[in-house]
């Protein structure tokens, strides 16, 4: 249990939930202990292979075999997966030594397997930055990190503590244009990109490396959603939910990285708590239907979760969203229909960092839609 946290052995977890700086496994173990104390039943080594609209699901493990169960409610907390070498335009051969940073992390932190000795990292996502430090600490040489955007997609503290501390260069506005080597990776070529993200001739640099790790984005795991008829959001990649974290299928809820990709585990937990509470209320028949208020990303915003708010008295709503670029000295405005409801000044906003704004539930109950947008001052 504990999911990806078990391989995230670095610290930075729990600052909000526990007011402590914990490592991933420690954070996971606190919740595992809570679960055990509560006497909850659980299955490990088990994979859910089917989920249906009536909340029946099928799981399998070596001991029980395939088992069909029906939940009064189901909560999807399957996390996310990494964009793969196949999903980006990686040109050249397909040798050994190209994998996602998270795969290399599981090899290294769980079983002590080093996947390479001379490493380059494509993408400045947090897992890639963290792995630059881990591979260095375990004796590999990390030659650099290339990021397609003119800004890092990872947190600033990771740039400082994982790259700068070890003098690992970060090449912003760069990408890998070719991988070379047929059996094992031998070298890569990177180039600077222009504003259209096209490589600029003459800016090529070659690095002799045996490993290329990718940290180019995360996508919610949705392998069960289609069969159950759960609608997905094109930008988050996860289910569309209301402020109870309920999907369009009654009784099926979603939270965490399987809903939309987070930066902070604490916010994942908060979402999980909210979804869990809603599921409990659903089972007890306490949830009633209501009209929907839609939430809309306006200027500068990629998406807003939850996608709908129910027109009924409930807890205050936490809106999570991301901006589409680096913004300095801006205001975030929340509109109720076309009326400005709330405005917050922000010194800096970056796509790498999810934003959260809490809005009092009763303030928006008479709205038909809520829009969040960035206003450049």
């Amino acid at each position, binding site marked *: 249990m504990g999911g990806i946290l078990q391989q995230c052995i670095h610290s930075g977890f729990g600052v909000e939930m526990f007011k402590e700086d914990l490592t991933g496994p420690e954070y996971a173990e606190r919740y595992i202990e809570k679960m055990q104390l509560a006497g909850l039943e659980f299955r490990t*080594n088990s*994979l859910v*292979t089917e989920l249906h609209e009536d909340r029946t699901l*099928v799981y*399998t*493990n*070596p*001991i*029980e*075999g*395939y088992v*069909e169960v029906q939940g009064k409610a189901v909560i999807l907390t399957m996390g996310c*997966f*990494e964009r*793969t*070498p*196949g*999903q980006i*335009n*990686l*040109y*050249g*051969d*397909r*040798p*050994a*030594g190209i*994998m*996602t940073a*998270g*795969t290399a992390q*599981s*090899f*290294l932190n*769980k*079983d*002590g*397997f*080093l*996947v*390479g*000795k001379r490493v380059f990292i494509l993408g400045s996502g947090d897992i890639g930055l963290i792995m630059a430090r881990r591979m260095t600490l*375990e*004796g*590999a040489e990390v030659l650099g990190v290339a990021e397609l955007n003119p800004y890092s997609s990872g947190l600033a503290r990771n740039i400082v503590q994982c790259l700068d501390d070890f003098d690992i260069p970060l090449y912003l506005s760069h990408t890998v*244009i070719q991988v070379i080597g*047929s*059996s*094992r990776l031998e070298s890569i070529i990177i180039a600077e990109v222009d504003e259209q993200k096209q490589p600029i001739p003459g800016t090529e640099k070659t690095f002799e490396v*045996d*490993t290329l790790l990718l940290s180019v984005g995360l996508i919610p795991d949705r*392998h069960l959603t*289609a069969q159950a008829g759960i609608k997905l959001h094109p930008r988050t990649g996860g289910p569309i939910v209301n402020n109870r974290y309920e999907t369009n299928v009654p009784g099926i809820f979603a939270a965490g990285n399987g809903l939309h990709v987070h930066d902070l585990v604490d916010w994942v937990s908060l979402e999980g708590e909210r979804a869990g509470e809603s599921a409990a209320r659903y089972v007890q028949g306490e949830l009633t239907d209501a009209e929907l208020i839609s939430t809309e990303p306006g200027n500068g915003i990629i998406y807003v979760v939850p996608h709908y708010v129910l027109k009924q008295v409930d807890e205050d709503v936490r809106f999570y969203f991301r901006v589409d670029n680096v913004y300095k000295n801006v205001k975030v405005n929340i509109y109720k229909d076309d009326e400005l409801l709330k405005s917050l000044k922000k010194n800096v906003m970056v796509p790498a960092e999810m934003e959260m704004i809490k809005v009092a539930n009763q303030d928006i109950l008479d709205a038909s839609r809520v829009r969040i947008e960035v206003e450049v001052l």
Partner: protein
Amino acid sequence: MYDVIIIGSGVVGALHARELSKYPLSILVLEKNNDVSMEATLANSAVVHSGHDPKPGSLKAKFNLLGNRMYRQLSKELHVPLLECGGLVVATSPEEEQVLDGLFERAGVNGLLENEYQMLTREEALILEPNLSDQVSKAMSLPTTAVTFPWEMAIAGLENAINNGAQLLMNHEVTDITRSEHGFVVHAGGDVFEAKAIINSAGAYSAHISEMLHPKFFTITPRRGEYFVTDNRFPIVQTVVYPAPGKKGKGILATPMVHGNTLLGPTSNFVDFDAQHQTTPEGLNEVRNNITKTIKHVPFDKIIRSFAGSRPTADAGDFIIEETSPGFVNLGGIESPGLTAAPAIAKYVVEELVIPRFSVLPKSDFDPIRKKRVKMHELTINERNEHIKDNAKYGHIVCRCETVTEADLDAIHRPVRARSHGRDQTAYRAGAGRCQGAFCSLEVLKILSRELNIDPIDVEYKPRSFVLAAKTKGAQ
């Protein structure tokens, strides 16, 4: 002393081994890689073509049609999936309609039966394939077009041959061949073998092998084809959609795969051997730009992989199938439609060129059936649980994207042993799904290490490459 040595374990070599194993002969297959079928058979369109397209009178035309008619039975005997989806060649302009008319005529000349090719209006074509682009004005239907799983076909052919007495040696690259009193002496992988006859099915390297004994008479140039693979949860087409053919062969296809994915491609470019498996921006852009001419709603965001395959193209343009000197059969330039033609070529070569040298009759105990493997996804829950009772590994799913169980990885112990991480990812589909092995590769590595009884450090990824570089903490 072997009766016959086959050089190369692609689908052509594999089906020759199987065909030969019907006779009381000693057969050895030599493969230079650490695994079988790692070259042209590994990466191609997987289409069993109808035979409409090759130049009339060519060996390609002859063996394509014959091979197509053998595939259904072959797939049944070897338990290899065959998607009998049919094909459509589509025209998107008046010029292309003319090309299509020419192709229609050619299909007849090539010997397709009346019910094996048919001209359709746009409306008729849309019934067979609703996802045709709006520009499609006319189409030729080819109902005998099908899709196979080339790697499994080659592996299954070899397994069946081995079960009927053939032998296979991997990591045995042929370095020299000389004549001897009784036939040939073959140097491979540091060992020396003797054989009365040789079949050269070395694909891209067949000219090189031929030249060990003969003056150069053909050249093989790799013709690279670049492809995209899409997520199998979002099928795009239900039939093979061909564009009207142009100068560069059959053009860029949309092909439904046996596992539900769609293959988009290939391009067609002559390249150096070094570059034959390299994807390029130009090539993949060509696929992107051309595929939308024939089909619509192409989900470019559902692409899970791109790759480049290579066709071993001979300078003459046709297959080379000949006994170049007594007992030495050259199979050169077996490129598209080579996958389709392979069983027919094997039958011809074995029956007409090889067996007459040995004057033997078929064995009475040849078993044409390769045992069906358990496919959990085809079974009901109760049936699955029966298997799990016998073998708990069926309940342990290693690859969640493709629901590959630990028991499916028994390929490690099958006659054609899977030893490499890359092989498991492709043939047994652990890691072939949308996460591309991100979640299962550690577990696959550990299973390979345990089952092969080797250290994880020694688990290979591809021929001559390893998954791991070192263990931490100075551990050995």
